[in-house]
């Protein structure tokens, strides 16, 4: 892939119009030309800027993983299946309110609320689901606001466009809950800060979510609308294999759909994504297979370590050890996603040296393809 930065025309040609767009929102609302709308990135007018930040920060344009890794960790890209990790543990919230609303252990809500309360951040950007089950970005300034965003929606949400809408001169320190693609985009921004947008230095905390794939919120939402009374739906869940189900919980109980029925709504870009555990976040959070009500927590950076210490000191989380079998499974799943992504990418380009957005050394690629 060409190292030279390009503009929105190339963004459309190389990413948006060829099914690679992850709808992360990094390119949207930063200028009058690109906006996110109902699951699509829309070009309102032509922009002929030759080097556009829309292209530069897209997680699906060329990304040198070593460069990003140096920026975040001060070291080259780790070949560990889970990326650079300082500590692995499991946790759940001590707060019953949070646990009630949470998908699993309520760790993301707890961490972000504490960061807010302790003054690490002034506001947080998260995805919130409306009563109609449409996710959209939300800027929370207090714990209640964060709590409203608890729960997994499984749909892609262009939260990063909210980042672009924040005033350039705002002094607010921000926390973001992000998908792996969005974390990658934020890391690209930190590596080469944007102009005429929010000061990226203000982003103090990035909590990443584990992700195997995301659903296109326009088509999936339509499917939900046709099959459920949406305002009655409380939450969704994908139980661990071998269940192969997509559970919809409503006031009248639980309905299990075959997972295969949902696969058609998976965004095409997810087949090309190598990152299951949000490898460049401060802290990455996911479920614990087979253990209800707990989260797997990967602490990656000093910021993550400090926050975790604080949370333990304030007794906001109950901490535990991830069973070795779970860890093995997690690593296996993460590796599988990397291998699958590489295979799909090489199938698409027809050339092992052309890896679309992945700037990965040949030796690393070879080792992964073994």
């Amino acid at each position: 892939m060409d190292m030279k930065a390009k503009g929105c025309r190339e963004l459309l040609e190389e990413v948006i119009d060829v099914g690679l767009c992850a709808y992360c929102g990094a390119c949207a609302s930063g200028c009058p030309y690109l906006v996110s709308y109902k699951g699509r990135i829309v070009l309102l007018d032509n922009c002929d800027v030759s080097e556009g930040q829309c292209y530069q920060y897209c997680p699906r344009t060329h990304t040198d993983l070593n460069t990003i890794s140096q920026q975040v960790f001060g070291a080259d890209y780790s070949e560990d299946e889970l990326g650079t990790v300082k500590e692995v543990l499991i946790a759940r919230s001590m707060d019953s309110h949070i646990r009630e609303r949470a998908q699993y252990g309520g760790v993301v809500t707890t961490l972000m609320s504490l960061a807010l309360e302790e003054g690490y951040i002034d506001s947080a950007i998260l995805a919130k689901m409306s009563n109609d089950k449409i996710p959209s970005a939300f800027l929370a300034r207090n714990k209640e606001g964060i709590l409203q965003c608890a729960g997994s929606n499984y749909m892609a949400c262009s939260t990063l466009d909210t980042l672009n809408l924040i005033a350039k001169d705002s002094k607010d320190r921000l926390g973001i809950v992000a998908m792996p693609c969005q974390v990658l985009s934020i890391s690209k921004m930190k590596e080469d800060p944007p102009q005429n947008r929010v000061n990226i230095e203000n982003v103090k905390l990035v909590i990443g979510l584990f992700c195997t794939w995301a659903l296109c919120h326009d088509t999936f939402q339509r499917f939900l609308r046709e099959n459920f009374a949406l305002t009655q739906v409380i939450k969704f869940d994908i139980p661990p294999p071998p269940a192969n189900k997509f559970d919809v919980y409503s006031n009248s109980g639980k309905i299990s759909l075959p997972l295969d029925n949902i696969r058609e709504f998976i965004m095409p870009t997810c087949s090309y994504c190598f990152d299951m555990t949000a490898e460049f976040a401060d802290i990455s959070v996911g479920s614990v297979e087979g253990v209800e009500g707990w989260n797997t927590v990967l602490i990656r950076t000093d910021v993550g370590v400090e926050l975790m210490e604080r949370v333990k000191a304030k007794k906001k989380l109950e901490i535990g050890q991830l069973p070795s079998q779970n860890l093995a499974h997690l690593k296996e799943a993460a590796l599988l996603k990397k291998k699958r992504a590489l295979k799909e990418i090489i199938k698409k380009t027809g050339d092992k040296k052309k890896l679309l957005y992945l700037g990965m050394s040949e030796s690393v690629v070879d080792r992964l393809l073994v």
Partner: protein
Amino acid sequence: MASIELDAPGTTQLLLGNEAIARGALEAGIGFAASYPGTPASEIMDTLASIAKGMGIHAEWSVNEKVALEAAAGASFAGIRAIASMKQNGINVACDFLINLTMTGIGKGLILVVADDPGAISSSNEQDSRNICKWMNIPLLEPSNAQEAKDMTKWAFELSEELDTICIIRSVNRIGHTRGNVKLGELPKREQRAYFPNIWNMFDPTLSKFAAGPFPWLHNMLHQKLAKAQQRFESAPFNWYVGPDKAELLIITSGASTSCCTEAVKELKLDHKIGIFKLGTTWPIPENLVEKQLSRSQKVLFVEEVDPFIERSVMELAANLPPDSPRLVFYGKRSGHIPSYGELHPDVVINMIVDLMGITYQARDITYEKKAKELSMIIPGRALNLCPGCPHRATFWAVKNALQLDGRDGFVCGDIGCYALGFAAGGYYQSRTMHAMGSGAGVANGLGNLIQFGFEQPVIALCGDSTFFHATIPALINGVYNKSNFILLILDNNATAMTGFQPHPGTGMTGAGEQAISINMEALCHSLGAHVEVCDPFELENTTAILLKLMAEVGGVKVVIMRRECEMVRAKREKRFPYVVHVDPDICIGEACGCNRVCTRVFQCPGLIWDREAGKSKIDEAVCTGCGLCVEICPEGAIIKKAT
């Protein structure tokens, strides 16, 4: 401005051709005038309407040209001399009535003035309306300057009564919009009394003059009327010849081309070699008179706009000359010497004569010519744009965004008016079709009924407020009745703006300046069963949201009335700007990523200009009208408005 109602015969005024026609109608003693705005005819009614009350005549802006002609005919039937005026497209609209009228004859003198637009300077097509006279057997007159426009109009009323048929005066943009010295004639002082001959006789139905048949028989009668017209034309004062008895070249010309010819011949100093035969009565042509001119030369050049109308008539005549007549060579549109499209300029005629006479001519010094040609390359073009403050700019911006967001390849069916600029940069290239008045909704009807063929694209039709009353209502009814699916945007700026801000049934004012009922558009649309919304296009977010909502809904005809007054009308009335607007250069990021000067590069209001040296946008205070819309466009908030 011009005082055409002055009772001062023998005095001279500088009048537009259109004002002269109005004066001619007054001198003919008309009592009734009807019209619909259309360039280059509008000033005829503008002038008559402004003095109607004082002169005791009825002058109205009708809802469209068909009704205008019908109304004028009604007055004529009841014994009042009447005039109907319209542009070329207007006569198209009036055609069905017009041809029926030729069957029945008229009451008192009835004249139709049609103003063509050669070069389509202000039209969506180019046509030569004289052909209608040939088609419908209507006597035709073409004035060649303002004085003649007045004199011909007066004379035409007498002709019309003598022949008992409608007569047509064909003007063009260069006649109607050219000011010239006009010597005024007498204004008749007589009382007018209207009465309709209320006759029906079972034994002689032809006495019910305006309804009877048999029509083929009446058609034959019409031919006889035309034969009589031809007789009259042989001695009409509007046909003349100037030049030598025998000429090397005979030019036959009419209308606005006349002065191009006389000037060309004078410029080339060939008045002793070239004769000019000017025809003012061009259908039917006075054959004897024409034949006489044809004997002056064997080379004949036809100079006329736009079609080879006289050319063909004369060729037809020439084909029937006695076999021993000298062979004539014709030059004109058939031979390719004169273009059969576009406007004629004196330079074209000069070049033709130069070519035919085998001489050389230099319009100006050669060095100067070369320099001028070179320098003309650096002058930027001036594309048409909407006025600063125009509500249509906001409408097109909202439409553009809504169609992009919707993402299903939706498009706009455009129509006639200022918003016709929707196809250009000023309208963000939104319009995809444009034909006649009301065609936007008409075409949308068809497009909106193709679902069974897999059609999924949202269709948006446009019309203005005046256009709505003129032609769109039937298309809207059709859409509701025949279950089509489209969104109709009525761009209600409370004026017939493009043609000069004439009133219409929605404005609450008549042409003569009297208060009138203001027809409520939304109530009318509601009563048809269409879904109706009203919004201010300047509220961009709201307007875009409404459009998106309606596009997402499946089925039916939806009307959105984009209501905001035309900026020129508002400015004239209020004589102040709502805001003072300026660009803060410290906040403006110009061409940088994040903006790339969207205000001047894309939004393109003429009030915003680009300072290339500073790399910043600026407000041009000589152009900006302080509407404040651009404030919404700037992503940095660099454009600031302060209420005045």
